[in-house]
């Protein structure tokens, strides 16, 4: 039997940091659809919020009137989120996370995404911007 199609939610918004709570509400919805526990839910909210913050900061250089598209797909135990911008393509090598033993502000967002998601992939999209795809899977249940 083929797997059921995932639930899908698409949201378009402006690159305004005021909308970050809305972005996290979307991630929260995805986590609920996937049946995630607290930790998987919290890390998904964090990673999606960091992803959109990076779009605002790096792709749009803090312009707040630019388009951001978020496409979320969820099925039990699995969520995929695509964040699509039309700004400056951000070479992933330029936003590598900093070494954690170097205590300074900044550079943590990419580290947090990579540390908490099962997959983090950047690619240049047809708009000349970046499509970032995050995948989170629920942790397998602990063995009795």
């Amino acid at each position, binding site marked *: 039997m083929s797997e059921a199609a995932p639930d899908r939610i698409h949201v378009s918004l402006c690159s305004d*940091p005021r909308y970050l709570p809305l972005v*996290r509400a979307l991630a929260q919805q995805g986590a609920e659809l996937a049946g995630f526990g607290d*930790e998987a839910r919290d890390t998904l909210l964090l990673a999606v*919020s960091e992803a959109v*913050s990076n779009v605002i900061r790096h792709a749009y250089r803090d312009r707040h009137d630019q388009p951001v598209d978020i496409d979320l797909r969820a099925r039990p135990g699995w969520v995929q989120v695509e964040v699509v911008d039309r700004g400056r393509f951000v070479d992933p090598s330029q936003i590598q996370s900093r070494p954690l033993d170097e205590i300074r502000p900044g550079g*943590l967002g990419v580290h*947090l995404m990579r*540390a908490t998601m099962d997959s983090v992939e950047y690619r240049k999209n047809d708009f000349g911007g970046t499509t970032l795809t995050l995948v989170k899977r629920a942790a397998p249940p602990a063995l009795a």
Partner: protein
Amino acid sequence: MKINRTSQGTAAIFTVEGQVDMHTSPDLRTQLRAALQEKATPVVVDLTAVAFIDSSGLATLIEALQATNKYGGRLRLCGLSTSVQNLFRLSNLTSIFDIRATSADALK
């Protein structure tokens, strides 16, 4: 996000409520800087009512920690939820900050 500041002797206590992200962290930074200019110590940031904090919030706290260290003051955090504790652990910051259970502990 709401921030309430109180003072107790040389201490400055910031009670933060809500979500600390790229939009709201500049306000936290501004208010902390005022206490840092006064060389308050300890500077206590009570995160009991903080439901979410992102890397910009962490960056704000790291800046404040570095600034207090420069004048020989102390920055203490308290009231971290499980979710916020996990964020500090993931960021390798647990051993960098002085983290207490409550604001009363942070003022001792």
